[in-house]
């Protein structure tokens, strides 16, 4: 057995065959309401649609809640520092 010469890569890349598919896409079918659920909705709504009354932001409920026992408006002073922080003292 002889040592084989390593050929240049250019011609190899040029002779690459085409790709081969393995999957066929299953088309998405929009799900439908079942007949009973649809029929039940012929009745008038049993309560008002108040979804829009909730806070619309996903963050605003993250805002600092007032700590228990704090004087109103001073919640900023109660922000907890990380105990391990070197700037704690």
């Amino acid at each position, binding site marked *: *057995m*002889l*040592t*084989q*010469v*390593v*050929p*240049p*890569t250019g011609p*190899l*890349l040029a002779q*690459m*065959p*085409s*790709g*081969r*598919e*393995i*999957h066929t*896409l*299953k*088309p*998405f079918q*929009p*799900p*439908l*309401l*079942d*007949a009973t*659920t*649809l*029929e*039940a*909705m*012929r*009745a*008038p*709504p*049993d*309560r*008002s*649609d*108040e*979804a*829009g*009354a*909730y*806070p*619309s*932001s*996903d963050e605003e409920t*993250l805002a600092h809640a007032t700590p228990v026992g704090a004087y109103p408006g001073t919640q900023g002073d109660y922000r907890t520092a990380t105990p391990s922080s070197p700037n704690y003292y």
Partner: protein
Amino acid sequence: MPYPFVLPTTSSFSFSSSFSCESHPSLPLNASTHRGVVRETLKKHKRLPPSSQPSSLSSVVSGINGYLPYLFAVDAGLSHKAIHGDEVNVILKTAPAIEWRPTISDSPIPGKELPRVKIQSLEYEVFFTLSTLASAYALQARAALHPLYVTSTAPVGTQHRQTAVAAATRSLLDAAGIYDYLSSRAEGLVTSPPCADISPAAVRAQASLALAEATLLAVLKDDPYPAVVAQDRNANDTEWMYKAPDMPKVRAHLFARLCLAASEHATQAHSLCAGRSAGGRISEGFVRYLEDLRRTSRAKACRFFGIDSELGGQTGTAIAWLQAGLQELGVERKESKKTGGFGRFKKEWAEKREDRKVEKGGNWGADAGKLEETRVIEMLETKWAKQNDTVRSDYRIFEAMDT
């Protein structure tokens, strides 16, 4: 490993404020209720630490699947279509005002969360809801594959590996099907999209991306080499003691062509997303991932052509294929065989960092497997080059003895 998508969040919305339904008066209220569930699960998901987010994906998916029939009923009602032969009559009172936070659009301020976009038609609600579902499917695929990449515990068994890959493939094909549906739906739209996330180009690119990833999984399922390079770094792995990777020749050639198909899909996705499309730019990170995936797939194809040549006794050609693979990956050729100095240190550091990322379960694999493929190719190249060189020195000894 699929892209680490971030799931969007959305504002609350009351269907009754914009729509009324004469035939089914309770439809708007019920749609709002189910939409409220989706909004809550997305909000909860966002607040979880990255390592616990995978566990909340199933509630996101079931929330959206619960909402979709109502959303499509309102949608059908707007065009007076019948469901089960029952005509639904929905009237638009005022244009809806719904907000969604895009996740793959380019951020005007780097590192900062994207501002929310306001959409004013139910059509884009369909787009956002479905693309969120598809992203959740892609993330479920990631979660299924995660155990295969952890190097701090014993490697998963063959059976477990096959099940994980099969589940991930199903999720990715579901995602691809959804994007395919959206892209055919986008053809009928005349308005320009509110943001890049749901632009026709992005939607089509996402379909190609999911298909590319699913195609690569067909190869990953039976590719023994990534496990071999992972063994190096896994103290709990003992399989190398009794098993060397082997692969039938026919399979090597087939795998190469599957990888080429994956790279064609990734190329298409990349060309759709690079540059400016309707709705604005797509985030640089996502575009880079598409480019990396294209490169990784091409390099994998080269490696399998190399394995094919090596099995046929053509070591020289096999080494050339590996070199072509490294070129595809954009890895600089090291001229001297000496792997030392800073380059090696840098690579080891990058590997360690990626291992740690996998550990913590954050955005691991954001390089589309480039690092892993580089490891595999370099391992094979060292091995085959040594074989080729050894043959030569033996031959020279014989030559010397003859004279």
